[in-house]
Every structure is written in structure tokens, then in C-alpha cells.
């Protein structure tokens, strides 16, 4: 077993433990467990990057590992404040799900193919990780509202959705720019783009309803969660789509050459 695989599995268990501690509102243990999970996942992602010789963005396994590391770091940072155990715990749960999903895929270390070798693509991927981190916390904000309600929880959800929307917009613009460089086209109705736009429009709708239509409480939590699920699926679903319908399968073994 590669060391990064062992670290990914360890991070998965630490993240699950952090999620349980957070959801049962044991603040102190949840902080330590989150810190541990974040550290282990980050080490795993760095090890993978060093062994593979590139940013861990190529293949669902390494991409999920790095994405979870960013989510966990962000959640650990938020959990240092009092009263944030529930949202941070939910973010840890999201990271655990991503890690588990990633572990199902081939884990061989591969050099980048030519279409993946670009600093622009690295920026795009970074924006994707930051987007996931913000939306994992938005899922936490929704759970927080459902569990206890209150102004602070709602403000937390709004802030997470706003930051997530910003990074998601950046991710899409960088994707379009890279598409223009790689395919000579900025937008092409590829399923990955359709999924991103669907999630993005939903996010904007939820923010609007909140900003000027008085969306509050459980309904806000439910709609916020819907936006989060669409956003997370918008990338995780792609590998499971019809392979000839998209260029975005990042696992070489699953890629169809056409």
C-alpha cells in the first residue's frame, strides 16, 4: 500500500470521529479530532503530490484526498471558535464522504498528460477546493440551523454560501478560460459545465431568496443544503456519467479516447 493510501484511510477515520464529536457537540474532542484529520489528510495530499510529481489533481483518488484536506483545514480553523462544533462536524462528514468515494478509484501514481499540464488548470483546481471547503461549511450551517436555529447560524450559512458562490464563480471562469486555451472554446455544454451551471444558478437563487424574500429558518436550511448537494455532485457525479459525453473524467483508466 502506498503511504498516501494509508494516510487517506487514516484521515477518513479521523474525519468520521471528528464528525461524530462535532455532531454530538463535544467541542474539545471535536477540535482535536478535526485538527488530526486535517493534518493527516494534508500530509497525505503532500506525499501524493511529491510521489506523483504534480499537484494532486489527476484521478479521483488524489483529487478527493487534496480536496478533503482543504475542507478539513478550513473546518478546523472555524472550529477553533466556540459554538462551531456542529457546522465543523458536518464539514468533516463531507470530507469523510469524499475520502471514501476517492478510495474506490484506481490509486496508481501517473504523470500528467499534456491536457492537464497547466498552471491555469492548477488555479482552477484550487478554486474548486476552496469552493468545496466553503460549501462543506454551508452544509454545516444548514445542519446548525436545523439543530438549534438562531441568527448566528443563519449568518454562518449566508456567509458560507456567499464565499462558496464567489469561489464557484472563479472556478467556472478559470475553467472557461482553460477551455479556450485547450479546446479553442470557452463553453461547450459538456455535462460538467451543465452541472456547474445548474448548481451555480441554484446558489444564486438561494442567496436572492435570502437577501430579499425573507427566506429564513428551516426552509433556508433546506434550500441551502440543496445548493450544497448540487455543488458537490456537480463534480463527483462526472466520473459516473456516460464517459463519451464528457472530457472531464480525470481517471486515466476510465477515460474514453475519442
Amino acid at each position, binding site marked *: 500500500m502506498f503511504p498516501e493510501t494509508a494516510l487517506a484511510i487514516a484521515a477518513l477515520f479521523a474525519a468520521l470521529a471528528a464528525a461524530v464529536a462535532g455532531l454530538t457537540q463535544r467541542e474539545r474532542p471535536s477540535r482535536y479530532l478535526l485538527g488530526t484529520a486535517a493534518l493527516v489528510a494534508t500530509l497525505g495530499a503532500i506525499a501524493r503530490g511529491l510521489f506523483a510529481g504534480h499537484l494532486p489533481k489527476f484521478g479521483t483518488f488524489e483529487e478527493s484526498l487534496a480536496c478533503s484536506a482543504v475542507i478539513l483545514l478550513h473546518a478546523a480553523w472555524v472550529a477553533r471558535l466556540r459554538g462551531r462544533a456542529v457546522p465543523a462536524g458536518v464539514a468533516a462528514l463531507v470530507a469523510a464522504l469524499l475520502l471514501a468515494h476517492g478510495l474506490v478509484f484506481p490509486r496508481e501514481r501517473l504523470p500528467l498528460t499534456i491536457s492537464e499540464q497547466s498552471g491555469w488548470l492548477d488555479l482552477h483546481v484550487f478554486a474548486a477546493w476552496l469552493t468545496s471547503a466553503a460549501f462543506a461549511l454551508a452544509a454545516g450551517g444548514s445542519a446548525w440551523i436545523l439543530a438549534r436555529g438562531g441568527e448566528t*447560524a443563519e*449568518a454562518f450559512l449566508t456567509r458560507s454560501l456567499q464565499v462558496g458562490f464567489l469561489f464557484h464563480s472563479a472556478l467556472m471562469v478559470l475553467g472557461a478560460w482553460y477551455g479556450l486555451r485547450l479546446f479553442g472554446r470557452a463553453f461547450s455544454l459538456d455535462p460538467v459545465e451543465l452541472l456547474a451551471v445548474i448548481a451555480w444558478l441554484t446558489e444564486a437563487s438561494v442567496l436572492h431568496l435570502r437577501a430579499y424574500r425573507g427566506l429564513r429558518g428551516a426552509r433556508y436550511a433546506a434550500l441551502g443544503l440543496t445548493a450544497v448537494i448540487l455543488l458537490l455532485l456537480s463534480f463527483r457525479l462526472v466520473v459516473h456519467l456516460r464517459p463519451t459525453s464528457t472530457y472531464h473524467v480525470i481517471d486515466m483508466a476510465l477515460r474514453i479516447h475519442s
Partner: protein
Amino acid sequence: MRRVLGILGSRRFADLLLLSMAGWYALLLAWSQTSPLAIVQRIGTMWAFRGLYAALAVNLFACFLIELPRALRRSAPRTVPPGEFPPPGHEEVATPDWDGLDTAEVSLRRRAYRTRREGVRLVAERGRFAPVLGMLFHLILPLLLPAAVLSLANRQTFSMDVGEGEVVEPLPGGPRARIGVERIDPRYLGGEIYFTQLTAAVSVDGAPAREIRINDPVTVDGGDLRIVSMGFMPGLAISDPDGALLDRAFVKAGLFPPGTEAELTFAGSPHRLLTSFYPDAERGPDGEPRNATLNLRRPLLKVRAVRGKLPISTAVLSPGESMELEGFHLGLEEARLWVKLEWVRDPSAHLALWLCAAALMLLGAKVFWPRTTWIVEESDGGVRAARRVEAPAALSDEGGADVP
């Protein structure tokens, strides 16, 4: 007029449009799982869809016109009535390192606040125009529609296959420049079409060559020129029974799978040549060529010559070798690489992306630079300060109170 604008730019209309768009894209996604991309693209540009885009653009623009004055009003400087401390809406904040209004002023200015004195108070503000930035963000979105329409209408593309060492003169519909390919350098992982490198040194109008890649174009005649694929080109020469050179030509062999047949005919010769190219060939026990890797290392060309449907002869040639063809001589002179280059001139797409970048900056400023006001006043020996952040900021210690 005002009423029409009000309806077109209404928030209810916006909500409806945003959700309809999301629904439309969900349908397209379902289609993409059962139909090829070309059909999805055709559906995606249907009139109903275009109508939806146009309606959203109109709605956004009208919304901007309606909301801008409001946003400007909300951005006006406010005076905080003296007296009460902390003033309503403000929260008292500890500031251990300020010993007077002057140090507070210096410190806040360093953090990009505008400061002013109101009586005994120091008032500092930043991000006053956040609501206006929000509306300017909304103004950019409808501008993307004309940019997209212009891009679809005016986009020019042109592809050309250029051999290593070849210079192509300007062609109608293509870039107005001489394109030379000096060197092509592919690397693969193992023997598969898994490129770990594909570069071409391209010279434009005789200027020193610049390396381009599949995702790293060079600008030529206002467009982007990039590599889209590559292959091999064995060069053949045919001479007549008297030994006089009749013609020279290259066969364009694709990259994969090796050994795929390509056809070639020469003027002045009655033969059709069916050729299979192997870039790195070994001979099997039966003498038939087999390919080892995709590197151009040990090229072999298998030639099957036919006249009409009649097989004439078959030979396997290395560079420098030749074969007999009913008196004609067919020689393999060399084998080299070619690249398919694509030139795309689409200034509107670039414009659209610049607009997007501007929209991102505005959104970023609105999210990370909320309107914040400080009120600082002297109080027995030190200062006390209160702050108001006009956006929810519960991700950090600032803003929202802790839940017990």
C-alpha cells in the same frame, strides 16, 4: 414606461428565470446522457432557450436600472448620532494598542479606512460602495449575452497539417502569416497514446520559433494557434521505368493504431498504394512488421500496390529502400512527424472572459470588503471603540456572537 421597467426588472421575474434556467440545463444534462454532444448543442441553441437567455439579460439590465439608485442611496455616508455608546447596530470592540484618537486614526488608515472627526469622535469607514459593486456585478452579466452572440457569429477557425521542417504560406480563411514548424517533440508513457509531452517549435513569418502546446497557443493574426494532434508522414518518391523521377509525396499516417492503412496515388502511375506505417517496428517471425512504441525510431512502411482491384506486389520498406512496381520504382525516402494546428480567432470570447474577470473582482470586493464603520472616542485615559460590519461575517471571530 416606469411600470414596464418595473415588471421587466422585477425580482420575482428574476427568481422565475434563474430557476427555469436551472431546469433547462437539467434537461440538457439528461439529454447528454442519451444523445451525442452535437444534438445536445442543437437543443441548447433552440429558440426557447435563446428566449430564456434574452429574458434574463433584459431582466438583469432592467434590475440594474431600478436597483442602482437604491444601492447609491444605501452607500451614502451616514452620521452616527452622538451620545449613546456603543451606537445602535455597533458592537464594542477591545483595542489594547490604541492610546488615543491619533494612534487609532493612523492604525485605521493603514487598514484602508477613510477617517473623519465628528466632535469628540473619530469615525472610520471602508467598503461604503459594497451595494453598488453588487449591482455593477449584475450589470456585467447581461453584457455577456451580446459577447456570446458575437462570438458565435464571428468565430473563425482554420486547421492545417504541417510537417516537421515545413513552412505553410497563408491560405484563404486561415491566419495571414507564414507558419513554419521547426521541431515536433512528442513523449509518451510506455507504448500507449498517453502523451506526457507534445510540443512544436513554431515560427511565424520567419521570426524565431516559439514552443507551443495543446493548451499553450501562440497568437497569430489576432487568433490563437495551438496543436490539436499529430501523426507520422513517410515520404515516398516514384520513378518511371527509365529512372526519371515522376513525383514525390508524403502519406499522412495517423498516430493510432499503428499500421492503419492509408491510400496514395501518383500522377503518371496507374497504381494505388495502400500503405501501413510503423514508427518503431520490429519484424515478427513471419517477417511482418509489428510496432513496439509510438516513437519515431525504426520506421517501416508496408506497401500493398494494386492496379484496379488486382494486387501487384507487396513490400516492407525502411528509409532508403525501394520496390519494383511493374517497371516503376517506389522508394521510401524518409519519415517524419506532422502536427495538426488549429487557429481560432474569437476576440468576443476573450472579451467575455475579461468581463467575467471584472465581475469576479466586483463580487470578491463585495464579499470580502463589506461596509465597515468604526466609532472611536476617548474615555478616561484611553479610547473605546465600536464597530459595525454590514454583512454577516460569522466565519470568523468578528461579527456574530458565539452560541453558548
